[in-house]
Each structure stands twice: as structure tokens, then as C-alpha cells.
């Protein structure tokens, strides 16, 4: 009846969805790892990688959901805002003596600075575009995103950005700093805490599993990103379950109606755009600046990243924060990470050798009844082909289930339970 119980039961359901999806992913990757004959540590590290992807996709999709799912702001330059976030944070935190040099500032300054810079770029892009029709924002964001990439890529600024090769050794993340005396070297003397943790993970800890330092650091760093994801999720759920969220929804539905009720929609749009850009900056920092990546370079931020994030949001259901995380998880795990692994397994299992290099070479033998070359070609090119599957899935979703997995739920934008009537609220007071 009351907000609390209703909110709590939804929270439980949503936690169930996420837990279910993660369980599914872990089982899939456990099976894939086993089929590929990975050692235990290898399987664990592949689960870590999936968790990492799920978390960073979750962050990016949540930010896009604020823009597109809630306020209807069609931002197709997500990659650019992520790039600004991570580049700025690396520039702020890289050692002064490094090449390209940084400012040597502490990590929290770098993270906040990166988010702020992304928000400012959002301001510059949004200020002119948000006043116009919504398609202008789309054009503006994709243009800005590409301009950002070209700028980081260009030789002119390579003194500061590293040009096409970017920053090849980015400052170590907080887990390394916490566990190692010299955070930049994995073989350095550990801190007392580090020593204890490494000892635990390597020998005694989890029975028969023995994990080395890199795995340990990666797992803990991934957990840290998961914590960031949980915080951002909680922040957004609170932010949109409020009068603010109502205004955003009304802008998405009918901006003129919102204006005619006295809402300064331009201000709301600009603020929301900047907030979402800041969160995209944060996603970029976590994605490219944390672990698994030791370098940041412009071509990691090609426009397709934006489209992956959009697809994940469409799968999960635009307008739902839980759906965003769910869509991010399923996309990252099942559509992005799994297909190449499946292809490898099939290639091995079917004994496909010397697959043709071109589609012509693959098509020819079909005429003579030989399917293996075609199969080999397809499996060989799985990393590219998976996006054809994604495209097909997208068309299916748009036709059959445009609201995605959770977009159909009516998530009421309110800080209280609106269904409580004045007369009822007096009667129901006792259970609060």
C-alpha cells in the first residue's frame, strides 16, 4: 500500500531480474570456458571481464536512458562524451613527467574533472541545439562526438593528447594504489593490505582456486566499478522518482504541453543534458580508464560504441533504469562478448581449417555442395558478423517489442505513492 512497501517490492523484483541475468551470463561463460578448456583462473578471469563489461555498459546505458528514455533527448554522440571524460581525467592525473604529460593531480580530481569537462562539452553542444527541433540535437551530438575524436587524433595537439596512439600508460587505478607500494608496477612491493589480500587470493582463500596479482587487481577493480554502477543507479532512481522526473517525462511526451503548464523546458533540457553527459564522462572513465585497458586512444571512441549503447537501451527498455542495466548486461554478455567465443569453439569442434578470406571464396564451393568453407568464413568473421545478428534483433525488437524488456512497466515519476487518496491516507496511517 504505502510507497515504501511498493518501492521495496519493486526493488526486490528488479534485483531479481539483474541477478537472473547475471546468473545466466555466468553460466554461459562457465560453459564456454569449460568447452574451451580454460583453467579455473582463466574462467574466473573471463567472468571478471563479463562483469566489467556489464558494469561499464550499465553506466553508459543509464546515462543515455536519462537523456533519451526520460527526457527524449536524442543524443547519438555518447562515445564523444565518454572520450572527453576519460581523456580529461587522464590529462589531469597523468604524471607531470610522462609523455604526453599530465598535471599529476589526485584521482578524485581527475574523475570529477572528467565529468565536469563532459558536462561542459554538453553545454556547448546543447545550448544551441536544444532550442531547436529535436533532430538538431542528434546532428549536433554526432558531429561533436566525431570532432572530439578527430581532435584527440590530430597531430596538432599530439603534444597533449598523444595523437593517434593516445596515452599508452594511463595512471593506475585506486585498487593498485591501495595494494601496491609502487602502483605503476605490478611486481612492486605490496602494501600490508595488499600483501594480505594477494596471499589470500593466491593460496589459502577460496580453496582450490589460486589467483595471481593481475587477476586479483582486476577482480577488485571490477567490483569497484560495480559499486559505482550501484551508486549511479540509486542516484538516478531517486532523481527521476520525483517532480523532476515528471517534468522530464512531460518533455519527452509533449514539450509544448509542459511549457504551457509553466515548465521552463529549455532549462530542464539543458540541465538534464549536462547531467547525462557528466555521467557518460564517468562511464568513459570507468570503461577505458580503469582496468583491462592500459591505454586510451581516439579510435576506441568510434560512433559504433554509441550505437551499441543505444541497442542495449532498446533491449532493456527505454525509460526504465533497471531495464537499462539489464539491457546493458544482456548486450555486453550475449551479443558482444559471447559470439566470438562461440565461433572459436565451433571452429575447433568442426575442424574448420584455412577458411577462405573473402565471401566470394566462401560462396564458390557452395555450388559444389561444400558448405564448410562458408561456415569457416562465417565463423572467422564472427566479430563483425555479430552486428548483423544485432541488427536483425533490433529490427525484431522494434517491430515486436518496441518497449524492450522493461519499458512497458509504468514507472510512475513521483516521490510518493500518488494512488493514496486523502481519505485513504488517514485510514492507512497506522501501518507507517
Amino acid at each position, binding site marked *: 500500500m504505502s510507497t515504501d512497501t511498493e518501492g521495496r517490492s519493486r526493488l526486490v523484483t528488479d534485483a531479481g531480474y539483474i541477478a537472473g541475468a547475471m546468473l545466466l551470463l555466468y553460466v554461459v561463460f562457465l560453459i564456454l570456458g569449460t568447452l574451451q578448456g580454460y583453467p579455473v583462473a582463466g574462467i574466473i578471469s573471463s567472468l571478471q571481464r563479463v562483469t566489467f563489461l556489464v558494469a561499464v555498459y550499465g553506466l553508459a546505458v543509464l546515462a543515455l536512458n536519462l537523456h533519451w528514455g526520460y527526457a527524449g533527448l536524442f543524443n547519438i554522440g555518447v562515445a564523444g562524451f565518454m572520450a572527453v571524460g576519460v581523456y580529461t581525467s587522464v590529462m589531469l592525473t597523468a604524471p607531470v613527467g610522462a609523455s604526453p604529460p599530465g598535471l599529476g593531480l589526485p584521482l578524485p580530481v581527475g574523475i570529477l574533472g572528467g565529468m565536469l569537462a563532459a558536462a561542459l562539452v554538453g553545454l556547448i553542444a546543447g545550448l544551441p541545439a536544444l532550442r531547436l527541433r529535436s533532430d538538431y540535437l542528434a546532428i549536433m551530438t554526432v558531429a561533436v562526438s566525431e570532432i572530439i575524436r578527430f581532435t584527440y587524433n590530430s597531430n596538432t595537439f599530439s603534444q597533449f593528447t598523444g595523437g593517434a596512439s593516445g596515452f599508452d600508460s594511463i595512471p593506475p587505478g585506486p585498487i593498485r594504489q591501495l595494494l601496491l607500494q609502487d602502483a605503476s608496477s605490478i611486481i612492486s612491493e605490496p602494501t600490508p593490505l595488499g600483501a594480505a589480500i594477494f596471499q589470500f587470493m593466491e593460496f589459502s582463500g577460496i580453496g582450490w582456486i589460486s589467483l595471481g596479482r593481475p587477476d586479483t587487481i582486476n577482480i577488485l577493480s571490477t567490483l569497484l566499478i560495480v559499486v559505482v554502477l550501484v551508486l549511479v543507479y540509486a542516484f538516478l532512481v531517486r532523481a527521476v522518482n520525483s517532480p523532476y522526473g515528471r517534468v522530464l517525462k512531460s518533455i519527452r511526451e509533449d514539450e509544448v504541453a509542459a511549457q504551457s*503548464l509553466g515548465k521552463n523546458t529549455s532549462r530542464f533540457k539543458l540541465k538534464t543534458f549536462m547531467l547525462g553527459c557528466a555521467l557518460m564522462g564517468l562511464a568513459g572513465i570507468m570503461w577505458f580508464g580503469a582496468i583491462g585497458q592500459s591505454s586510451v586512444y581516439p579510435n576506441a571512441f568510434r560512433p559504433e560504441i554509441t550505437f551499441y549503447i543505444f541497442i542495449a537501451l532498446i533491449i532493456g527498455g527505454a525509460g526504465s533504469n533497471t531495464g537499462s542495466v539489464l539491457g546493458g548486461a544482456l548486450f555486453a554478455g550475449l551479443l558482444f562478448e559471447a559470439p566470438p567465443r562461440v565461433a572459436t569453439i565451433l571452429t575447433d569442434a568442426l575442424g574448420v581449417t584455412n577458411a577462405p578470406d573473402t565471401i566470394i571464396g566462401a560462396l564458390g564451393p557452395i555450388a559444389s555442395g561444400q558448405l564448410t568453407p562458408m561456415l569457416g568464413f562465417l565463423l572467422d568473421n564472427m566479430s563483425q558478423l555479430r552486428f548483423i545478428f544485432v541488427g536483425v534483433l533490433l529490427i525484431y525488437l522494434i517491430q515486436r517489442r518496441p518497449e524492450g524488456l522493461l519499458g512497458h512497466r509504468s514507472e510512475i515519476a513521483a516521490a510518493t505513492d500518488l494512488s493514496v487518496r486523502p481519505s485513504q491516507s488517514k485510514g492507512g496511517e497506522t501501518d507507517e
Partner: protein
Amino acid sequence: MSDEPGPATTNIPDDVETPDELDPESHDSAVEEAAKRTPRGIPLRVDGLRKEFGGITAVDGASFQVEAGSLTGLIGPNGAGKSTTFNCITGVHTPTAGQVQFNGENITGLEPHEVANRGLVRTFQIARELEEMTVLENMMLAPKHQRGESVVRSVTPGLRRDVVSQEEELREEVWEMLEFFELDHIAEVEAGTLSGGQRKLLEMARALMTDPEMVLLDEPLAGVNPTLEEKLLERIHELREDGYTFLFVEHDMDIIMEHCEHIIVMHQGKVLAEGGADDIRNNEAVVEAYLGEDVS
């Protein structure tokens, strides 16, 4: 509940004009008498309003005034420029020329939200309900200056308490308004599933939740079935008695004649005639403008 929604301004004449020494009995009637004799305020003045779309002149130098607390009708054949006039008054369109004054302030060319926040709200000819939001959400959107419209206040633990408590108060007002418009039984459905008439009711109820002084209604009865139509007109009269001012576009001449104390007739972007029902009925220009028109 029916005495609840009413702009603060209604009480001003009472406070200002009532000498304390008068006993309550005579004071009531004295105020009523005074109200009848003294001319009421003119919240809305439209002066030489002109709006061109490319080659089309939709409004062509229209001038009129609306008296405080009145139910003023705005009629005219299709394409006369009524909706465009509304759009120019409320900032949806910028007028090509002319001036709009609200409570003595020049509001010409202000943004729609600026006009609305001054207490002048409107409904649309084609209802603009927010389809994927529930009736309750639609209603809760409207109240002005809600604390929780700030992200910071909505997310910060200490400050959110104020957001919640204000929303609880507004929620109560919203339910009262929904009961007043007899929409309470569909409060939790999405507005997109409502019938045409219910949408019109919702749009009006929602506009009233902004606590306006004056409401512009663009064909609030279009698509509303006859029983609902009666109800809606009744509501409008009740609200007017509470002190709201209405400017009301309607195609049905009979309804306008019966319900509006003052009528403005537009034709080809100009104000053709103005006055009470009898003046309009006997106005030759009006009869001519409507000649051949189906005005039933």
C-alpha cells in the same frame, strides 16, 4: 471541495473594500452591490494583434479585452484565427505585430512557461494530454514551483523530505480536483487510454492545478458527449463563481449564447463584433459572416 480551487485574487476585493465596522450581514450585500456597479478589472487586453504565416494572415489586427471573473466567449467560423489568437497570447507563437497585456504587464512574445507562470494558462483544441503518463502524473506535473523539480533536492537525503511532504500536500489537492471533475475513478490509468471527452476534462483539470487566474479554453467541448458537456459547463460556471476568468472558444453558437455573458466574434482574423448574446444575434455583420456556415 468545490470551494477549494480558487485563485487568491478572488479574496482581494473582500479584504480591500470591506470596512471593519460594518456588520457581516450588510457587508455581504454591500460588496455584492459594489461588485455589480463598479467595473471589474481587465486582466487580459489584446491590442492590434497580428500573426502571419508566410502569405497567410491568420490574425489581422484583433483587439479585445476580457473582464475579470467573466466567462467570455470567442467564436468565429473555421479558420477565423481563434486558435492562433490563443497561441499568440500564450507565447506558443510570437505575434507579427500587436500587444498582449496581462494584469497591466506587456506579455507579448514571452515564452509559454513565462505566460503560464503569470497565471494565464490555456488548453488546446486538440488535447495535449501526456499519453504515457497516468492521469495522476499528468495532474501532479502541473503545480508550479515544486521543490522536487530540482535534481539536487530530489536526491539529497535531508532535502528530499521536503520534496516528499510537498508532494503529499499536492497529491491531496490533485485528488480533490479529480473528484471535482469526476475523473478520480480513472486516476491511475495512462492518459493515452482516455476518451476524447475525458482528455478534455483532464486537460482543464490539469490547467487548473497550476493555480491560474485566467484560463483560455480552446473548444473544451469538442468530442465531449452531451452528458459530459453539461457537466463540463456546470464545472466552468462553478469555477467562475470561485473567481476564475475564462475565455472560451466554442463552435456551437447556442452554447456560447446561453453561457457567455460577453461574446467576441472573429472573422478572417479580425474582431467582427462584440457584446452580449442579443447584440451578437442581431448583428448584421455576424449573420453575414455565418451565412452559409453551418453554425448548429
